[in-house]
């Protein structure tokens, strides 16, 4: 076989600009191999192209008994700091507002087959990710995507990430207007834009067609845009957006704030550009933990931030591109077949059940939106080709990905729904339960993510199976609950906005690590992620199904008529729920409950295995843990104060909890610490921060900064919003203290001075 290459085969298929970009990347790849560019520089280059790291890419893996070196043949060649060249990575493919054509889906199926592990994965931000990709394969992969109009550029790194939008935009009954063309235009405008190249952190934008539903999740983004209209000239309707800034999940979630109640469509680009400029110029660059836009908005205050943005906006010279696209907004997404009302809904019980959860009528009579449930967001190349066929035959060639890791087909004539169901069933894709309690969302977690603490996908899979088995017993209120799981505090699983959220953490029990999840309650998915939940306590991973059982049973039993889950939790109170779970939080010793020392879908003993903790260290560890548990209790009380609307008590409680946790750690080194807050801060700083003992591999000293900042604040002035953040920060600080205590125990570094 000749040594043909995709570069030659696809010459001219992509835009000249995209081809040139990939050529440059291929050259950089060669230069790195030849040792002519530094690994740090190459890492940022590949990240900006969407080529991300994956678990074990430092060439080491815990095999359940010991740490093993993965002997990749590349020797000491790296593709980033501590990132081995040959170690497989992940490629994130940005799909603006989740809209795909059949041809694009087919190409991704080919790529999954040839370079990945035969799986396409839909993320919680409407991207597609392919895993286990070798860096040497990425230029070809990028070329094949470029040939069908897809770029992975700026899918990762400190850049404008995928612009997301409601998957039902254009066909939804509650929308003000179709946001799709706006999302598309803005995504294209910002791609590679000079004003978006100098950010200290990533930047996320979301569009929503209305304020009430959840689909756009606008309020948890750096920029959230909600479609609105107002009366215009001569009886016309003027289109515009509510423009929100400074939202985000991550370690400490922030709700976006309203920058402007009506930004006309022609102002969308220049105003976004002005925000990007202010973020690039004034956003934090050194401390990654404080580098998102939300921290800048918070630091400056909304009025000052707005003034800076307005002044910047006034300086930007007009561009034709700001409005050139507006005339074409109407020409978006057309049906393939004429409308046809449903002839009958009931064919059989399975079809009925599926129809109930996976089909909803469009605004346009005679058409339906069909949701395709993808378990954990995964599907195969064969399924992808089958979906491409359906998209061509029934929908006018469009597919949309959802933030709930599913996929939707729009413009399906209602009369054709049974045929579509039959075709999906043949593909193994006719599972009911889309966007219901069984449709559990999860980030990659310990499966592939370098930062994962707990097996979010393993847990989600287990919950799916158990809940599906009971789904017949779910009434509407129970069935519509959302469960979301994140493998660590970075919150990619969006657990903060779920009814039942789970956040991966770990605990040390007599020298062994136990995977846990924090149980997070009170989040609101609707109203564009209208409210963030708070943790009520950590439970071993293996007992989370029991947690779900108890909470959902209580809800089914004790809710009053028509009461929604959020209102129920508020009425019953988190204390009662926590009390109900307390017995599950207690972890027996290893010998009595080995299963708790393993995570879901992973037979390896969790963590780094047996550690020789001596008697003396063991005793001291228990003293430290006593203090940490006290801190946990106090932070929980702070969240209760928050619920009562007592901001000052909540803020003070958050600080008190951090002080208890800090003191617990300090007492491992000196018993003579006392209760004076200033002394605790000082000792903690000297013994744990300056020495970096408290530092996390990835987060560094981030959580200690929360503590120092809170200790220096006047808490009498705390607002409810402030207090919410402080409680979140205190929870993270305590988690970090637990992790620190574990590390020290394992290193045998607990002996008091």
């Amino acid at each position, binding site marked *: *076989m*000749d*040594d*043909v*290459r995709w570069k030659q*085969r696809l010459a001219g298929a992509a835009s000249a600009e995209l081809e040139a970009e990939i050529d440059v990347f291929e050259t950089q790849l060669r230069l790195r*191999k*030849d*040792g002519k560019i*530094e690994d740090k520089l190459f890492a940022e280059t590949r990240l900006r192209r969407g080529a991300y790291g994956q*678990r*074990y890419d430092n060439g080491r*893996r815990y*095999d*359940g008994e010991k740490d*093993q070196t*993965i*002997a*990749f*043949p*590349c*020797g*000491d*060649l790296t593709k980033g700091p501590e990132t081995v*060249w*040959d*170690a*497989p990575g992940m490629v994130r493919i940005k799909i603006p507002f989740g809209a795909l054509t059949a041809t694009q889906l*087919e190409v991704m*199926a*080919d790529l999954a*087959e*040839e*370079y990945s*592990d*035969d*799986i396409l994965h839909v993320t919680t931000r409407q991207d597609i990710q392919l*895993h*286990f990709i*070798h860096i*040497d394969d990425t230029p070809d992969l990028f070329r094949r995507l470029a040939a069908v109009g897809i770029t992975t550029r700026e899918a990762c790194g400190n850049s404008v990430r995928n612009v997301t939008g409601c998957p039902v935009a254009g066909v939804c009954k509650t929308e003000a207007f179709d946001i799709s063309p706006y999302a598309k235009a803005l995504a294209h405008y910002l791609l590679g834009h000079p004003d978006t190249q100098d950010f200290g952190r990533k930047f996320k934008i979301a569009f929503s067609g209305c304020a009430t539903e959840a689909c756009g999740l606008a309020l948890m983004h750096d920029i959230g845009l909600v479609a609105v209209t107002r009366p215009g000239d001569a009886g016309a309707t003027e289109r515009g957006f509510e423009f929100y800034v400074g939202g985000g999940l991550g370690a400490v979630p922030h709700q976006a704030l309203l920058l402007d109640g009506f930004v006309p469509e022609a102002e969308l680009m220049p105003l976004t550009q002005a925000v990007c400029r202010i973020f690039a110029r004034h956003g934090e660059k050194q401390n990654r933990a404080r580098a998102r836009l939300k921290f800048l908005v918070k630091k400056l205050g909304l009025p000052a931030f707005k003034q800076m943005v307005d002044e910047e906006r006034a300086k930007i010279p007009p561009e034709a591109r700001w409005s050139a696209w507006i005339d074409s907004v109407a020409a978006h997404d057309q049906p393939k077949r004429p409308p046809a009302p449903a002839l009958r809904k009931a064919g059989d019980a399975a079809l009925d059940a599926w129809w109930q959860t996976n089909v909803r009528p469009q605004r346009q009579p005679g058409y339906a939106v069909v949701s395709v449930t993808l*378990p954990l967001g*995964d*599907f*195969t*190349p*064969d*399924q992808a*080709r089958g979906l491409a066929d359906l998209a061509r035959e029934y929908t006018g060639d469009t597919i949309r990905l959802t933030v709930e890791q599913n996929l939707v087909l729009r413009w399906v004539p209602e009369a054709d729904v049974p045929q579509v169901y039959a075709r999906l069933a043949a*593909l*193994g*894709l006719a599972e009911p339960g889309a966007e219901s309690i069984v449709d559990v969302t999860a980030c990659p977690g310990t*499966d*592939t993510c370098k930062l994962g603490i707990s097996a979010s996908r393993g847990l989600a*899979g287990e919950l*799916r199976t158990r809940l599906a088995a009971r789904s017949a017993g779910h009434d509407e209120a129970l069935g519509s609950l959302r469960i979301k799981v994140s493998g660590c505090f970075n919150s990619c699983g969006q657990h903060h906005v779920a009814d039942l959220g789970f956040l991966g953490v770990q605990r040390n029990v007599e020298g062994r690590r136990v995977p846990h999840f924090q149980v997070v309650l009170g989040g609101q998915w609707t109203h564009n992620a209208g409210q963030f939940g708070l943790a009520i306590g950590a439970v071993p991973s293996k007992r989370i199904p029991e947690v779900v059982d108890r909470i959902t049973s209580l809800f089914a039993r004790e809710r009053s008529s028509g009461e929604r889950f959020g209102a129920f939790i508020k009425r019953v109170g988190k204390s009662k729920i926590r009390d109900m779970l307390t017995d599950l939080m207690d972890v027996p010793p290893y010998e009595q409950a080995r299963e708790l020392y393993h995570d879901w*879908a*992973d*037979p*390896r003993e969790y963590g780094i295995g047996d550690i020789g903790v001596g008697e003396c260290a063991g005793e001291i560890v228990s003293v430290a843990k006593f203090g940490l548990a006290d801190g946990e209790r106090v932070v929980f009380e702070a969240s209760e104060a928050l619920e009562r609307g007592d901001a000052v008590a909540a803020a003070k409680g958050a600080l008190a909890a951090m002080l208890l946790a800090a003191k617990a750690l300090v007492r491992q080194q000196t018993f003579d610490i006392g209760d004076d807050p200033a002394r605790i801060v000082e000792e903690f700083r000297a013994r744990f921060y300056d020495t970096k003992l408290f530092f996390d591999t990835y987060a560094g000293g981030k959580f200690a900064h929360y503590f120092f900042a809170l200790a220096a604040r006047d808490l009498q002035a705390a607002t409810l919003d402030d207090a919410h953040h402080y409680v979140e920060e205190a929870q993270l600080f305590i988690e970090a203290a637990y992790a620190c205590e574990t590390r020290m125990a394992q290193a045998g570094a607990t002996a008091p001075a």
Partner: protein
Amino acid sequence: MNPHPQANPAVHTIHHAFKLPLVGESAIALDEFIPIFHGWIRNRALADEVMIDVADYAHVHGGPGVLLVCHEGHYVVDRSRNLLGLAYHRRRGQPLADGTADATLALRRLIRAARLLADDPALAGRAVFDTTRLELRVLDRLRAPNDDAGWAAVQPSLRGAIAAVWGHEGALERHVGDPRAPLSAWARLPATALAALHA
């Protein structure tokens, strides 16, 4: 900084993917393979592979149920195309003398892994392979497109690999299905004990 010669493969490796059917669809649950593959990594059971991790896709209908991810290829307890079997998908590695040598290496690795499963005490003899059938695919649409020319190009090496392992060419038939799928074929082979194959 010095160049890294070993990271510059000059010629490419053909991505052969072979699947040997498992007899009895329901004899073994997919999750039984997870600890076995973890054990292979722990004990370095495949001496010439750099084993990386185990991926669990049992929740995906008709997909790659459980994978042992290795540097040169993946071992997959695969349910694709309505057929449960053990597959080996070669992805990279030192290119060999020709396509036949490449294909033979991939096929031998598959057979070796099948023998390990067949002998695994945890499966207690339930991993029984059907050696009379073999699914063959070439996961490379550039060099082996799913058309007559692609088929003509790869056929000799596929035949050569089968002959090297079974000692018999069997009957090889191209599978003409979805033109978008990778080039694929089926081999019908004389019944041979797994242990008697030349792996």
